[in-house]
């Protein structure tokens, strides 16, 4: 087995593992807000690894360039889709179209502080008890 073949197999295994792990993440995480995070690695890391495998195999031929273009397109699309979907969910919750809080009651999870309207404010000069998640960046 040549070095190129080994590199291709390693990249393929890595790419496929990332994609399947992200599918598992979308399945097991509760709520659309939590599921959405797993679109990121699925659209960035997986396709990049697969495109790298194609480039290793084919060099910068038509196949390699198109694989890279496809990966680039997915990388650009991922944050756009994440934001658009999250915003759609936020508007549905704000306008009472999506009963996400009702769903939380059914699953027995606490309702306070879980929706975006109960969001703590985090600022550059805020510290102390309001930022107990360690999110306040002190200047």
């Amino acid at each position, binding site marked *: 087995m040549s070095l190129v073949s080994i590199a291709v197999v390693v990249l393929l295994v890595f790419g496929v593992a990332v994609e399947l792990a992200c599918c598992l993440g979308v399945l097991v995480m509760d*709520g659309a807000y939590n599921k959405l995070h797993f679109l990121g690695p699925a659209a960035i890391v997986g396709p990049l690894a697969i495109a790298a495998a194609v480039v290793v195999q084919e060099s910068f031929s038509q196949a390699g360039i198109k694989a890279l273009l496809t990966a680039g397109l997915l990388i650009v699309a991922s944050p756009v889709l994440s934001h*658009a979907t999250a915003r759609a969910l936020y508007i549905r919750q704000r306008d009472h179209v999506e009963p996400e809080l009702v769903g939380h009651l059914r699953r027995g999870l606490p309702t306070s502080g879980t929706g975006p309207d109960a969001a703590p404010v985090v600022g550059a000069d805020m510290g102390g008890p309001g930022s107990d998640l360690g999110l306040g960046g002190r200047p």
Partner: protein
Amino acid sequence: MNAWLIAATALLFGLIPCAIVMLRGSPVEALVGLQMAGVLETVVLVLLAEGFHRPPFFDLALVLALLTLAGGLVFARMMERWV
């Protein structure tokens, strides 16, 4: 059968969790499942193009990536108020 086709077959199993989410989740959760399936299928098409040694098949993956973006945006916009 080569490594590319094996990888494509393995990735097809990833559609099962996506389908479960689409069938059992709320409308927005289903949209997340659909977007994940779109990304997955784009990668599968790249693998099949390389596995079958057909460079023109890469164009299918490119078009699907574009359509996943456009379709996801349309669904998200519709779901704000109309679904």
